């Protein structure tokens, strides 16, 4: 190295070069960011919309259709956004569980001895993955759920009613009195109600993410050496028994990291709720933007919330991952 030092021009010196590259890149980035932020501050100042969070305390004066947190129009914006967040979390949590169950079932079915079941599982994955989620959501909502009958014509089973306005379930109400759905003034009422918007969103999210989860599960099972199957079978274990107690536990090592990214995309995809009229975080944010004009703050809140949800999912999945990893002895 040193023998040719004097002959190497300084701009090709390996000790200088990295600094030059970084300097150039850093300067360019700095300039671009300064330009963007400078304009942003100037334009927002001119419009009187410079970053501020005080509006969060003002009354929202709009209603939301469904909410787990008590809410009415006189409550402040932050409360409305909280309602949206809680609604989002509700969809994400139920969606996660549903997609995992469906995906695992389908992933395992693609190893079934029954050829028809196997091909059906593969077909499900191939069909669902190649159709945009938004299209599927609109299909579920406008074609399937809005075609349900209403009022007395609704599908009725003991304790369950499925109608155009939602899914009604029997549950304990006011203490411990078991109460089923009942028709009051042509509107169904029940202690537990899932709106059709929520049901359509869930159905879409679960079938869509389920296909991806099925692929992850299939990959995980395929990664288990074939000898494990043979060993289990030669021990006299039935297909389902060898799957449950020999193959799946080993496959989980591969499956869990793959699930993490599917869960995160489910969380992000839940923002498409706005297309089917479910009041999630994005939907409330959009309304808030309209009423306040505070685009930047609303965007930052959205970004921050989804980031936290992502991080939470990652953290939980990291923990699960550590549980399922094989400990070397």
């Amino acid at each position, binding site marked *: 190295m040193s023998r040719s030092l004097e002959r190497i021009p300084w701009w090709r010196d390996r000790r200088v070069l990295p600094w030059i590259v970084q300097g150039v890149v850093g300067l360019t980035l700095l300039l671009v960011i300064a330009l963007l932020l400078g304009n942003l501050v100037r334009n927002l100042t001119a419009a009187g919309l410079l970053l501020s969070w005080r509006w969060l305390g003002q009354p929202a004066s709009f209603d939301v259709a469904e909410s787990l947190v008590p809410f009415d129009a006189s409550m402040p914006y932050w409360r409305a956004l909280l309602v949206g967040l809680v609604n989002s979390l509700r969809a994400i949590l139920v969606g996660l569980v549903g997609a995992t169950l469906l995906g695992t079932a389908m992933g395992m079915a693609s190893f079934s001895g*029954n050829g*028809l079941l196997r091909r059906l599982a593969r077909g499900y994955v191939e069909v669902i993955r190649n159709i945009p989620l938004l299209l*599927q959501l609109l299909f579920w909502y406008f074609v399937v759920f809005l075609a349900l009958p209403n009022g007395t014509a609704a599908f009725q089973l003991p304790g369950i009613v499925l109608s155009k306005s939602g899914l009604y379930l029997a549950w304990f109400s006011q203490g411990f009195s078991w109460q089923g759905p009942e028709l009051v003034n042509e509107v169904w009422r029940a202690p537990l109600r899932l709106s059709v918007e929520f049901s359509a969103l869930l159905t879409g999210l679960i079938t869509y993410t389920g296909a991806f989860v099925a692929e992850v599960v299939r990959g995980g099972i395929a990664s288990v050496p074939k000898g494990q199957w043979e060993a289990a079978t030669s021990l006299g274990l039935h297909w389902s028994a060898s799957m449950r107690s020999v193959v799946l536990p080993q496959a989980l090592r591969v499956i869990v990291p793959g699930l993490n990214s599917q869960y995160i995309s489910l969380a992000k995809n839940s923002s498409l709720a706005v297309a089917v009229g479910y009041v999630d975080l994005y939907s409330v944010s959009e309304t808030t933007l309209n009423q306040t004009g505070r*685009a930047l703050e609303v965007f930052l809140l959205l970004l921050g919330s989804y980031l936290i949800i992502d991080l939470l999912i990652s953290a939980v999945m990291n923990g699960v991952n550590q549980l399922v990893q094989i400990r070397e002895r």
Partner: protein
Amino acid sequence: MRPARAAPGSIQRSWAHALRQELFGSPADSLISVLLISTIIAAAFSLVRWALGQAQWAVIQANTTLFAVGRYPVQQQWRLWLLLVLVAALSGLSWGLLRAYPRADRSGQLWPFNDRLAVGLLGFLAAWLPAALALGFPLQWRWCGITALLVAMRWLAGHWGRSWPPGLVKLIPVIWPLLYLFGMVLIAGGLGLPRVSPSEWGGLLLTLLMASFAILLSFPIGVVVALGRRSQLPLLRWSSVLYIEFIRGAPLITLLFLGQNILGYMLPGGWAPDRVWRAAWVLTFFCGAYLAEAVRAGLSAVPPGQLEAARSLGLTMPQALQRVVLPQALRIALPAAVGQFISLLQDTTLLSLIGLLDLLGTARTVMANPEFLGKNAEVYLTLAVLFWCCCAALGLGSRALERRLDPTHSPA
């Protein structure tokens, strides 16, 4: 690999025996099979009955132009036809040349089975689709002509491609980008053609344009950012990480929100592009971040010895990356990248949520037309089939490309 009883090696058994073994191997299997078969038959039956009886496909037939190109001015639509002719000719040419060179098809056949199948399918589509859409006769003939051109070019290039000067063949990869640029001019106007504003593009045209634009431009972004993320230089590494994680942390719809509602404030007055282009750039940067992760995985799969060897041969860092590391990394990254492109094509439907008239946006406008109120099922099903075909074709193409680029694949 398929454990349990379905062993792929035993093909010798008769077809009927295999079927019986697969479907009715045990009582439980038989029960499942019978249930599934009856469900499938019932579902297929009601679907066919609906599609042929109850469905009113007039909503599709009456709006083919809207679905295809949106509000693109009628007087200027010849430009799109011209582009379509050029694309068909060049596709046929490239396809034929791929087959003309033996490395292309390792069995050395000029017309392998898949190709004959594809041509048959194209012929069927050219004959059936325009008729099913109730297009006028001139349009039907136009479609047949374009398909014929594609097949003819495929045939010409397949048979005589080898005797053409090699310079011409090498030009093909250059012609495609040039055609893309020329296509942009044809679509948007310029070079003497009257301008057609992006707000007039729509339907399939806008969807394909957005997807192809984002795919093409996200590729360099993805490669650069992936290299940045693996760089030794902390500034490059951290800025790449920040970009990737910022994009991947947020749902696409919030990024489109950023593009539509905030980007206008961030650029000097008058610099902000049209909102169609703003969405296109958001899609590009979105796809770039995911692509960077795919390329990074490819890069980390290349043994570090490759880079060291290349460097010790006296190649500079850019040379070593360009000639040795990247070709290997990109080949490994290909399946993941194509998966990303497929999901990008699907993500273009989100443009309808910000009021752009992409395929889905157009569909929703059409369904607001009083004449076609409530024809949701017909429209959504058609769109689903269309998207499914596009995505499945991309997937097939990627698998073919993978095989073609696979160095370990032994020629037959």
